[in-house]
């Protein structure tokens, strides 16, 4: 039986892949970027989810093995930003990558998922639970994703036994967060350490999350049994 993880070259995606490999699963790891050596039994699919051929390749990889879970862990920040700097083309690209490809991905994989009464877990963001200044389009994409997932769960669970669940991670350690912290500190004219302390003052747990914690949440949610439809894992930063 196989699982598909999109965005597998990212920090969260790679942690999720490693966790599934440790569980002995056959993992199909997709990313538009190069996927390095992640582990035994991992099939790398390097391609763009906006490309029909990439979706067909993913479908082909699970045709005989069966499919028990799809984890949509890809996403981008590029295209978000302050209101006066938003541009149509990059805004549309962000919405397509963070939201529109996921319904298309599910369409392509619904039949094999339904055969196994599988689970879809979408990795949204704490930006799906609140508005974020200077991050409005990213927030829109993640709010839309959460709403779509909740609606699909209600429909598919009755029709085919497929469940659709959402994880909303907070600020999680990754090269992307690292760059963002440097940039925000520079913009604010303070040191990186001072900016981190400012972040920690907003997070009850007083630390950033680890990709492995998101992977563990995925492991909890892929069970074919009742689980939270939406799980916020953010150190308590957003009330959810």
């Amino acid at each position, binding site marked *: 039986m196989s699982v598909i993880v999109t965005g597998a070259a990212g920090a969260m995606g790679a942690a999720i892949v490693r966790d599934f490999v440790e569980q002995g699963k056959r993992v199909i790891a997709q990313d538009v970027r190069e996927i390095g050596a992640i582990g035994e039994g991992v099939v790398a699919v390097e391609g763009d989810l906006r490309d029909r051929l990439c979706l067909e390749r993913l479908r082909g990889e699970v045709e005989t093995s069966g499919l028990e879970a799809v984890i949509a862990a890809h996403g981008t920040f590029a295209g978000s930003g302050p209101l006066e700097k938003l541009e149509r083309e990059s805004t549309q690209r962000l919405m397509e990558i963070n939201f529109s490809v996921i319904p298309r991905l599910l369409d392509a994989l619904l039949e094999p998922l339904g055969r196994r009464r599988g689970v879809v877990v979408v990795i949204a963001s704490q930006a799906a639970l609140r508005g974020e200044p200077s991050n409005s389009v990213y927030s829109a994409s993640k709010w839309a994703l959460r709403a779509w997932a*909740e609606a699909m*769960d*209600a429909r598919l*669970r*009755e029709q085919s036994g497929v469940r659709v669940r959402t994880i909303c991670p*907070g600020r999680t350690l990754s090269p992307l967060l690292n760059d963002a912290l440097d940039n925000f500190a520079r913009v604010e004219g303070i040191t990186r350490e001072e900016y981190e302390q400012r972040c920690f003052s907003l997070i*009850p*747990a*007083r*630390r950033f*999350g*680890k990709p*492995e*914690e998101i992977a*563990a*949440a995925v492991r*909890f949610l892929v*069970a074919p*049994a*009742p*689980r*939270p*439809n939406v*799980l*916020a*894992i*953010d*150190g*308590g930063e957003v*009330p*959810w």
Partner: protein
Amino acid sequence: MNAQQARAPAGIELVTVQLEEEVADRGRAWVEAPVWEVVERVQHAQRLEAGSSVAVVLVVPDAEPGSSAPMLSAAIAGLRGLLHSLALEVGEHVTLNLVVCKRHQRAELRETLEYLASDDASWVQGATLDLREAGCQ
């Protein structure tokens, strides 16, 4: 055995609140009383050792007439607000979360508590884990 009688796995303290079906004043019994009950039972949280985890489990009736839905929503929202606020107070060393389940969901509750008790879940803080599935509520 039902969800109300579930035992806590090692590493987590359990505070169970059950909403009784047959009550006359649901505003008081479902919304007002549980807030104080939880406050009273977690007041020691700041004295718990670092790394401790507390789960408040709200056990709701398996089947309720639709007319009870607004009060049930209020009951859950009240405890969500309470737990998230308490998490802001004690969050640095103790995790506090709310689990909502129906009386018959004993197995799912046990699995959820095992997850919350694990080191992997130490960044789940002030959150609500609602185990009722849409369409089954």
